[in-house]
């Protein structure tokens, strides 16, 4: 069973456009502030008086015209409610406008009939919208995403090409197109779309994409230096520089330059996007950051991926499942949430559920070998050995070899060939050890123990004891979930309580009774608040 989530990069996300439009990703790098709308309140009062004197739908519509004034909006909502209560003429559209906040995040758990229906009705709605207006850019992007999720790659590509024709300079369109080709494994093409666009030299969001995509494509980033200069010279608003800083932090971290990576990630976390925050939560342990800043915790709440990672780190299986489903609803084409769900269900011995999600994932990406490995495992676990072997034979990626050895071990167990199973599991264990993944080696043995017990293998007690011993030396959350089901007395893994670095510190000056924020990465275990020295405030750190 392939474990948890693979390494992530700061590749642009492809959410439903309604969600993307909520993010700073859509914001322009220009600085031309606009004023909130304020209308003539005397005129509003006159319109309300006219409606009260003659409560027609027309007069109510004239009152509703003022709704874009934030001060008047609640008053108008009250008037519409009053109109409904008094059975005055109110049109469905007038009611709809003031129905209140509607949670439009649709959970599309397509393993259920209801989920499939939601998915299909969304596709039908987008088709209707495009029939009315084929130039509807947002509908094109949304339908392309759903088509890709349904495995219709050509249709998705056609829609994206239309969108690119309509908005060749649109940042969202370019990033979406790049994400599409990343999904297809065409990293070079994705990278080219961004590098060849003239706007990339000026737009920090495109620059960030270029840096991440260069990393994915294994080529030199042409924008990394410029991005770094942009950050150093603060040439744009911090919210626009966040993703560049995040992408550069990722590159620095991969190169082992943790000090530089920390400084960059701190800058990224000043205005974190959902993408950055997920990256920060995933890399949190390696970077050693305390992610308890208000801006960070707020950003976590906006990112289902980050919430999933946090729930997982806190051993909250139900929460992790919920957030994974939410993440899948946002990016139904992506195999990452599906990979997580299939892993989780396998750890919980819910193999049929796992199989359902693997199938779902393979529709969107039939060539995802990580999912095929999970398919092989789940098939073997339910005793469908023939299909498990077919799945194994489809996999070419050498990195997955240790996982496949373990699955072959499982197949041998199911066949009752205990000696062969022992040999295969040992081979898997050694392969994981060779790549310095003792946690995965221990997990392989934990699975071996579980299936040995289920298969009444002659020395299952010994294997179980060995699994316990190996788990105690190389613990992982996956391993704990498995072992705690096999041996209920398995001690829980303490939630990481290593001292962490802070992104900022507060300095309290008792003389002036003030609290001042001191930005900069602190040493490990630094307190959140420190007292100012009597002579002067310490200089702020970089």
């Amino acid at each position: 069973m392939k474990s948890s989530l693979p390494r992530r990069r700061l590749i642009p996300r492809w959410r439903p456009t309604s969600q993307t439009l909520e993010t700073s990703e859509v914001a322009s790098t220009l600085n031309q502030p606009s004023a909130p709308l304020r209308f003539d309140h005397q005129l509003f009062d006159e319109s309300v008086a006219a409606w009260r004197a003659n409560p027609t739908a027309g007069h109510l519509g004239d009152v509703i015209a003022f709704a874009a004034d934030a001060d008047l909006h609640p008053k108008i909502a009250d008037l519409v409610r009053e109109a409904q209560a008094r059975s005055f003429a109110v049109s469905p559209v007038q009611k709809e406008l003031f129905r209140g906040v509607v949670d439009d995040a649709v959970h599309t758990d397509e393993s259920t009939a209801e989920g499939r229906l939601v998915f299909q009705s969304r596709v039908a709605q987008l088709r209707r919208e495009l029939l009315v207006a084929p130039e509807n850019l947002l509908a094109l992007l949304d339908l392309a995403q759903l088509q890709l999720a349904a495995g219709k790659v050509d249709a998705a590509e056609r829609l994206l090409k239309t969108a690119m024709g309509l908005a060749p300079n649109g940042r969202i369109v370019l990033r979406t197109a790049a994400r599409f080709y990343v999904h297809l494994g065409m990293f070079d093409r994705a990278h080219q779309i961004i590098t060849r666009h003239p706007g990339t030299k000026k737009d920090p969001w495109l620059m960030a994409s270029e840096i991440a995509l260069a990393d994915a494509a294994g080529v030199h980033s042409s924008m990394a230096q410029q991005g770094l200069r942009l950050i150093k010279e603060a040439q744009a608003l911090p919210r626009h520089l966040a993703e560049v800083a995040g992408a550069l932090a990722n590159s620095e971290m991969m190169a082992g330059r943790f000090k530089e990576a920390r400084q960059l990630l701190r800058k990224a976390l000043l205005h974190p996007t959902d993408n950055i925050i997920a990256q920060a939560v995933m890399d949190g342990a390696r970077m050693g950051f305390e992610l308890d800043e208000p801006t960070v915790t707020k950003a976590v709440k906006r990112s289902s991926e980050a919430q999933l990672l946090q729930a997982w780190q806190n051993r909250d299986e139900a929460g992790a499942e919920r957030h994974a489903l939410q993440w899948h609803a946002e990016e139904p084409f992506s195999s990452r949430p599906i990979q997580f769900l299939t892993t989780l269900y396998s750890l919980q011995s819910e193999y049929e559920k796992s199989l359902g999600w693997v199938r779902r994932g393979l529709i969107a990406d039939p060539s995802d070998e990580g999912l095929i490995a999970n398919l092989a495992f789940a098939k073997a676990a339910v005793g469908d050995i023939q299909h498990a072997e077919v799945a194994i034979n489809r996999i070419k990626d050498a990195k997955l070899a240790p996982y496949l050895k373990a699955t072959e071990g499982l197949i041998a167990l199911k066949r009752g060939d205990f000696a062969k199973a022992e040999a295969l599991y040992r081979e898997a264990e050694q392969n994981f050890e060779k790549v310095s993944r003792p946690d995965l080696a221990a997990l392989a043995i934990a699975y071996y123990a579980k299936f040995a017990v289920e298969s009444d293998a002659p020395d299952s007690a010994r294997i179980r004891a060995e699994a316990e011993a190996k788990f105690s030396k190389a613990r992982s959350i996956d391993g704990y979930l498995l072992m705690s089901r096999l041996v209920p007395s398995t001690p829980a893994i303490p939630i990481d309580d290593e001292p962490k670095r802070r992104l900022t510190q507060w300095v309290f000056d008792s003389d002036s009774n003030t609290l001042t924020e001191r930005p900069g990465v602190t040493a490990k275990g630094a307190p959140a608040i420190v007292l100012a020295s009597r002579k002067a405030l310490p200089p702020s750190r970089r």
Partner: protein
Amino acid sequence: MTLTGQTLPSGWTLVQQLSKSPGGSGSNFCVGYVAERDGRKAFVKAIDFVKALNAPDPIAELASLTSLATFEREAMELCEAKNLSRLIRLFSHEYVNLDPAKNPLNQVYCLIMEVGAGDLRKQLSHVGAFSCGTVFSILADVALGMSQLHRHGVAHQDVKPSNVISMTDMSVPKNALFKVGDLGRVVRKDRAGPYDGLPWPGDGQYAPPERWYGLVPTQWTDARESSDAYMLGSLVFFLLAGTPLQPLLWSRLTPVMKPGAWSGGYTEPLILVLRSLQLNIISDVLVPKVPPALQDSLVAILKELIDPDPLKRGDRRARVQAGKAVGLDRFVPRFRQLANQAGIIERVKATP
């Protein structure tokens, strides 16, 4: 002081004071009346210069009021002289002095104009009160009224339901006739006016989206005729859904893109999103309300009338010709044709 009961030199008797004063920045000094003469009715807009003298800056207020009154009167006189059939007519203008001592400073200036049976707000008792045929007929009338103004270098700038007046009681829908009223906010190409310098002359809640973000196009066509076109498009939503387009669009904008939060200027990224959101509104709100046979034509008209880019808004063919006119006159036959088609569909439907 009320003028109710007073008879003007022209013979019109002011019979009823209206609760709402007519709009305009001088509205504090304007009162509306219904007047009668020989069984005919008229609307009288009375401008009280005496009240203006009590303003904190009476000279400025008087100058402004005089300019407004004169500008509106001249615009209406132009309509009269040019026989513009879909604009409310000006019967006369005169002064009335209620002061027994006849102090010349106590004069009230009155514009006496055509009165209708009520504006669109009153006529639209409930959504669906008008058949599709009637809706398109109203829109053809309004488009004609505005194109008549545009032809003479005048832009209305305040097209809204309260300024679209029904000239009949609507008891016989096929005889319905609508006219555009209140020329108090017009801007003219041929002469300077009191509203030329304002970022938006009309009521803010009916302004096109570019004005929300502070963009005033430099060319007359893009700034003036184009905004009239958007307001005509918004009227389609009002008539068919009971709500103008502007609050529908605003409600679909995400917080980061709303005026006040957005700082990217009125540029392509914003226009692209606005265009898509409007297309979604058309698809969700309007399309289900018209017969399938008329949907394509209506959608085509709307895409041109409400394009969020003021430089592209208007009739496609007119826009590519010399002068790049918005071409509201070209929408008149398009709306008329829709009205006729809708009428046929409705009659066929009503046939047992």
